[in-house]
Each structure stands twice: as C-alpha cells, then as structure tokens.
C-alpha cells in the first residue's frame, strides 16, 4: 500500500487483502509493518490516498502503467492533483480527531474475560482517548447480541465466535460484524462436581451432563474437541447444554449438571464455594487459545472511524496493561466491586495471578492461567469455522480465509497496536497446536477431514 503509486512498476489492483489495496493479505500486513517503522505517518497517508485515487482513475494496472510511462510520474502527480486535491484528502485521512461521538455504551458479561473492557473504565484508558464510556453489565450472550444489533450498545464484549456467527447469520439475521481485538487468551477451565473427583479420565464420562455458556463459544468447541480426542462423541455420549455463566455454579451445586467448561470466575467460584474442582485448564488443551473478543458492527466502524479508532486504542492499551503480571492484583481490586464483576476479591486474585486452589486441597501455580493479547489472528477465525462446520452449525462450503479477514481485523489492530507503542506481529495467520495436533490455516478442509468424530452432514 505504501509503495509509490506513481512508480510504473508497482501493481495496485488486487482482490487479495482486506483493505483491497494489496495483492495478498501477507503483502498488506508486511507493507503496513515496514512503513510503520521506516517513514513518517504523513508520507504513508499521502501514498495511501494517491494509490486510491489512481486506482479509481485507472482500474486496469496496465493502462495506469502506460499512462505513467508516457507522461512521467511528476507530471502524473500534477495532473491528478488538478482533478483531486491530494493534499486535502491526505490531511483528512491522517487526522485522528475530531471524535464523531464521545458518549458511548459498551456492554459486557461479568466474567474475567472482559477484564480489558472493564479495566479501561476505572483505570481511565477511555478518558485518555477523550471518550466517556459507560460499561454496562448484561445478562447473557443472546441479550448482548440483541442489544448490540439494536444499537443500544455501540460496541460490546462477545465470545470470539459470535461476530463470525452474526456475520454469517447463524442464530440471528446476518449483519456484517467485526472483531478488531481479542480480549483474553486462555483463562477457561473444565470444572467438575466434587463427587467426580475419582473419575478424571474423560473416557468414563459417558452420560454426563455438561454445560457451556453459549452455542457459539470457544467453550463449546474446546469441550467438544477435548471429548472427541478422548473418544467421546459430544453429540451422542454426553449431553451438552448452554447455561449462562452465573447459573453454572448453582446448577453444579444442585447436581443438575456434572460439570462445565466455563469462563472464570465461575470455575474458581465453584472451588471457593466447595462444590467443584478444576479438572483441567483450557491452556492445557490449547495454549494461547482466544476466548472473548471486542466486537463492533461494520456500520459503526464505517460511520465513526475516529471514534472507533479511539475506542480500540483504549481497549488495546487496557489489554496491554492487563497483560503485565505486575498489574494483576491491582486489577483484581478494581474490578471486584458490584459495579463490575461483583465477586469476592480473593477469587479474582487467584484467577488473575494464577496462584489458586484447585478444589482438591492443593495450591497450584500457573502464572499464565489467563493472559491478555489483543491481536486477532485470522487463523483463530479459520479454526473456529472449521469447528462450526465440524459440529454442523454451518452447512455447505465455507470461504474460510475471506470471512476470517472480513471479521478478524488483524491489520487494523496491528496498526493501532503500533500507535500505542506495542509490538504487533508481522503476519495475520499462524499455525498452532491443539492437543498435540498442528492446525494449518491454509488447509482447513484437510484438518476437518482428519477428525474421526464429527457430526455426519
């Protein structure tokens, strides 16, 4: 994108990347990264605008090159400037303000995954960007989805599969949604009722009733994956039901369910109240898996780009702050009151510091039990969609890469991460390992075919 558009040798037209200005997603990201460091912002924007204008004037690269060769690039700049005020347009693009709207409502579900969204309020990260954000506690995932679709919330905390599901129209009307930032990685666990403390092998779990927070959740996919790897078919051998997080511990106590793969603080809360024990942390299923995301509609992003950028910058800064283990105790104190998570402080401290009681009489130390990393790897989205397909939530062919780049706005995030002084990855996809099995985002179908247990479709 930042190549000189007046250079006859460069190619501008492409269908490959998310911004539409590059041949491929890879080039898009690397161009962004490279120029981020090497040249001034002003220059970057100039080139971006000029390429856009030139691309509009010459849809075919060949004719643009012929034109440039014929008249020379200096003449071309002068000629284009006559029709289009390049300088003014560049200025408009580079300006961060003015904010279109400063009073925003952001919804959240009271779980530790929402830590960056919540922390940004008491710690003043929203204020620093000139925003007056009300973070509003919401009763459940379906309600947060509806309130965001209704525009009562400008943006919201969602499970990372939800923006994908909303975009594809699963469980709601299709509406283009985006997840410009992941909230937390890891930080979930399988918790079982105390009476099962001697049945630790999943092979003995036939007939169990297990709970997950929502159908379109990492929890659902991770639990199904974990069970299937142990030879249990999650659709026929056990019963998996969606139970809102606050009801999980109450149901576990009432023996309505045998266990759950749920978000914290519910796992630690079950231990704290003496009704359950932590069987396995999800970091031991997939180290570094995404969980919740910060989501906004494409409409909001399009209509209020400055507000959106400011909001995202504050979320990314808060995520960076939460990532630092030194700040975790302070955060636990800040988000424990009734206005935020409404939980005993010691429960939150155990989760965030990773020194916790496991429910079976041991104190365990796992410093990265939960971690915070905003980068929305597009391969995460591809993995999520393979699982949606695996369990029959989506039927037919899926254009994995296209939807992933549409919803997981990795390049935007990378740019804003650099702006707030964080180091962003140079790529937007990566391979990772889930329970010893490597996932290659370039081969989703092969990955899907390799599973013996899946829903016949």
């Amino acid at each position: 994108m930042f190549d000189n558009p007046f250079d006859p040798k460069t190619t501008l037209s492409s269908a490959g990347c998310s911004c539409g200005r590059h041949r491929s997603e890879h080039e898009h990201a690397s161009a962004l990264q490279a120029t981020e460091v090497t040249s001034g912002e002003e220059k970057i924007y100039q080139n971006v605008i000029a390429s856009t204008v030139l691309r509009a004037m010459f849809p075919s690269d060949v004719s643009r090159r012929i034109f440039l060769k014929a008249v020379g690039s200096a003449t071309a700049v002068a000629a284009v400037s006559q029709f289009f005020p390049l300088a003014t347009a560049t200025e408009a693009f580079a300006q961060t303000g003015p904010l279109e709207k400063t009073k925003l409502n952001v919804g959240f579900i009271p779980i530790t995954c929402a830590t960056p969204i919540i922390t940004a309020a008491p710690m003043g990260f929203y204020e620093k960007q000139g925003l007056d954000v009300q973070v509003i506690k919401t009763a459940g995932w379906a309600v947060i989805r509806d309130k965001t679709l209704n525009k009562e919330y400008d943006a919201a905390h969602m499970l990372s599969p939800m923006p994908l599901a909303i975009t594809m129209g699963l469980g709601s009307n299709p509406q283009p949604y985006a997840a410009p930032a992941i909230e937390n990685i890891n930080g979930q666990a399988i918790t079982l009722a105390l009476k099962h403390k001697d049945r630790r092998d999943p092979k003995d779990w036939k007939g169990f009733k297990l709970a997950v927070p929502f159908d379109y959740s990492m929890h659902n996919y991770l639990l199904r994956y974990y069970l299937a790897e142990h030879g249990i078919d999650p659709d026929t051998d056990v019963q998996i039901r969606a139970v809102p997080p606050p009801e999980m511990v109450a149901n576990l106590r009432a023996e309505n369910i045998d266990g759950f793969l749920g978000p914290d603080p519910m796992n630690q809360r079950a231990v704290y109240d003496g009704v359950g024990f932590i069987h396995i942390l999800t970091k031991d299923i997939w180290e570094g898996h995404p969980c919740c995301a910060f989501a906004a509609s494409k409409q909001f992003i399009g209509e209020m780009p400055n507000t959106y950028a400011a909001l995202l910058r504050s979320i990314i800064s808060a995520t960076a702050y939460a990532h630092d283990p030194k700040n975790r105790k302070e955060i636990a104190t800040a988000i424990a009151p009734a206005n935020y998570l409404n939980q005993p402080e010691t429960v939150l401290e155990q989760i965030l510091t990773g020194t916790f009681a496991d429910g079976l009489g041991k104190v365990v130390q796992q410093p990265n039990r939960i971690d915070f990393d905003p980068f929305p790897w597009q391969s995460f989205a591809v993995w999520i969609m393979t699982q949606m397909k695996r369990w029959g939530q989506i039927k037919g062919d899926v254009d994995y890469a296209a939807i992933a780049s549409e919803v997981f706005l990795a390049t935007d995030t990378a740019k804003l991460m650099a702006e707030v002084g964080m180091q962003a990855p140079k790529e937007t996809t990566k391979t990772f390992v889930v329970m010893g099995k490597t996932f290659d985002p370039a081969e989703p179908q092969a990955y899907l075919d390799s599973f013996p247990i899946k829903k016949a479709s």
Partner: protein
Amino acid sequence: MQTSLSIRAGLLSVLLLAIFLSLWQFSTMGTGPTTDMDPEYAKLMGLTATTGKSALPGPMDVGAALWNHLRDPFYDNGPNDKGLGIQLAYSVARVLLGYLLAVAVAIPLGFLIGMSPLVSRAVDPFIQVLKPISPLAWMPLALYTIKDSAISAIFVIFICAIWPMLINTAFGVAAVRKEWINVARTLEVGTFRRAFTIILPAAAPTILTGMRISIGIAWLVIVAAEMLVGGTGIGYFVWNEWNNLSITNVIIAILVIGVVGMLFDQVLGRLTRLVTFPE
C-alpha cells in the same frame, strides 16, 4: 371481643414469625471445620468450604445486610451498581407506565366489548389465547421487533396487565342490572350519559377488582423482565446478586418485592372500597 381477636391474631403472627426465624437460624448454623485443610489452601477458599457454613445465610446475616441497604438506599456507584431505593424507583416507574397504558386501553375497550354481545363473543377467543402467555415468552419477540430494551420491558408489562382488566371491565359492563338500564331507557337518557352515570358506577367495583389483579401481575412481570433485560431495577438487582451467588441479597430482594407488591395491592384495595355500593 373484636379488639381481643385482633390482638390474639397479632400475637399468633409474631409467634409464627419467631418459630420460622428460629428454625431458619437453627438449620443454617455451621458445623465447624469439617476437614483438616492446609492453612495456605484454606485462605483461598470460601467460608462454606472451610467452616462447613451452610450456603444459605441465617436470619442474622440477612438482617445485617438489610440494615446496610436501608441505611444508604440511594447511592450511585456507576451504571451497574445503584442503591436499593434507586432500583425500586426504576421498577415502580416502569410498572406504573406499563400499567397506566394498559388501563388507558383496557377500560374503554372493555366498555365497548361489554356493551355489545356480538363483539364480546367475537373477540373472546383472542383474549382467551393471549391471556395465559408468560411475560418471558413475549420478551424475545418484543426485543426483536421494538429494538429497544427499555420499551420492550414496558410493552411486556402492558401486554400482561391488560387482560384481567379487559375481561373484568367487559364482564362488569355486561352484568349491569337490566332494570337500571331499562329505567334509564324509559327516562330517555342519552347513550353517553347512560354510560357514565349508570353503567360506570355500577360496573366500577368489578373494574377495580380487575385493576387490582392486573397491578399484581404487572409487579410479577417486572422482576422477570428486568432479570432478562438487565440494566436497572429490582429484577436486575436480583440477577446481579445471583451472579455473585449472594443468597443474602437475593432474600432481601424477595422481601422488598413482597412488601412493595403488598403496598400496591393495598392502595387498589382502598380504591375498590371507595366505589363499592350497598345494594
């Protein structure tokens, strides 16, 4: 004799309460440390797990927490944490709004239905189908179509509160004694005058009974609606405390909901007595 009966009834009430409270206290007492726990580990655990304390709070805990709430009912710690007084005010305002809307629609409509046997028969099946629908069933539909959670809550109160009033008004109007109508007819009283000076006073006790049933339903509905929609109100308070597994606060909310519901009922009971006439 009359006074001594009410004194004896009062005494019996107090005795029943005392028995209930002592049973409650007795059944929720802790059993002392149950197992030997590593002190390091015990520090990380809740009282239920370490001291064998019952998960249900005793009456003393509830009393203390209630006192805390009553001492400062109007604090405001941000959008998700407001005092009990503010939450109640939100709920009462919502209920009154939805209820008054229902009154404004149900009573004129009930009048029309009651005065015409034809319309009465024609709309009866619709009313019978719509009447028993739970507020929670209306909620997703309301959220989806109205696209505003605050209005949805009011709509749900409206739609649930309207039926008893409608049915009672129609019934009361239809059941006005034929002699009175006939007398009016003999005296050549106009339709409007007949409606307001004869039918309305005659049907008033029945109409108010319907309104009394409706306010009770509206108050039942608000808790369910606010638990679902969240944000503010006593229903949200219950949900928020449930989220924290704080049974103490849930019990307090139950108590408060009961008291407010009783007050509503008493007010309408008084009104009913005002319009009742001896025959």
